[in-house]
């Protein structure tokens, strides 16, 4: 009988790795009405890690939220403007301690961003693949990327926070 021991570490593995799309996720979280955090996922994405170079892109049209009218608004020029900017992208390099320094592009605007990461693994999965986990997060100001929509609240303040947490939970499989 063998036991899989989850091992957390900060060093990024060498070699070529691809995110397993079924067991990985990419999403965002933002405070709404000042009290609770609203979150959504981008179901369509790709991510790879090649010798410390992390590259990922996600499809705006694949944003999943629980209301069709909200989905329509998020796709519109008020927010992501899918017609002109169908993808979000990140590319960056291992900066040690699980961090990746690179450039994030949203709505055609590219800004330097550091992703804080936690590397877990390796394990050998039941199908014989070597895997690492890579959990990434960064807080960005959405207005830096031209996502400026907001609505004033009757009691003061605004409906939607500017700080948005971007999250990715990647299950990386070593390329054959």
């Amino acid at each position: 009988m063998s036991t899989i021991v989850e091992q957390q570490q900060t060093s990024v593995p060498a070699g070529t790795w691809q995110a397993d799309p079924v067991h990985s996720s990419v999403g965002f979280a933002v405070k709404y009405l000042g009290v609770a955090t609203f979150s959504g996922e981008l179901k369509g994405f790709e991510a790879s890690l090649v010798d410390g170079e992390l590259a990922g892109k996600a499809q705006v049209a694949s944003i999943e939220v629980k209301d069709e009218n909200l989905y329509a608004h998020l796709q519109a020029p008020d927010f992501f403007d899918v017609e002109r900017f169908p993808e979000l992208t990140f590319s960056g390099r291992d900066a040690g301690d699980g961090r990746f320094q690179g450039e994030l592009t949203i709505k055609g605007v590219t800004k330097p961003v550091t992703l804080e990461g936690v590397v877990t693994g390796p394990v050998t999965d039941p199908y014989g693949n070597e895997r690492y986990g890579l959990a990434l997060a960064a807080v960005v100001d959405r207005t830096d990327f031209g996502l400026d929509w907001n609505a004033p609240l009757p009691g003061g303040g605004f409906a939607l926070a500017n700080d948005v947490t971007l999250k990715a939970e990647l299950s990386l499989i070593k390329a054959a």
Partner: protein
Amino acid sequence: MRILAISGSLRRGSHNTSLLRAAEELLPPTSELVFWDGLRDVPPYDQDDDVQPAPPAVAALRQAVAEADAVLIATPEFNSSIPGALKNALDWASRPIATNVFRNKPVAVIGSSAGMFGAVWAQAELRKVLGAMGARVADVEVAVGHAGEKFEADGTLVDDDVREQVADALSVLGVEVGSGLVAV
């Protein structure tokens, strides 16, 4: 380029309709301004009536928007906001929200009023509404205050500053469409 012109005023001799006529004169020959004159015929929005086929005036509005490359709306201001008839027409046009004819449509909002502020609050609210509908709202503002002094009795615009502002707004709208339209 085909621009649909919508005046938010029903009044004969409307300054906002005159403002749109002034815009028409500024367009190069390759563009045309098509006036939608069905505002009076749009019924009050009622979800029970929001079925296929749509009421004729609503269907005509939706078709006119769909066939246009861009929309230019000139609005007056009623009680610090959008005139009810105009808002009602847009509410009809916005349905269904996910696929409505204004989605990604370049739209510029301009306006005039008899008072000094040139319908700025109505314009701001109109931009908010259009954004929520999914329109591509151009970053322009033409606020013609004291309209009675800017137009002659026959509606002719006599203010060169306003004419220049309208020309700039048309240029921005043209860039949004991607035509590189430059008003003459």
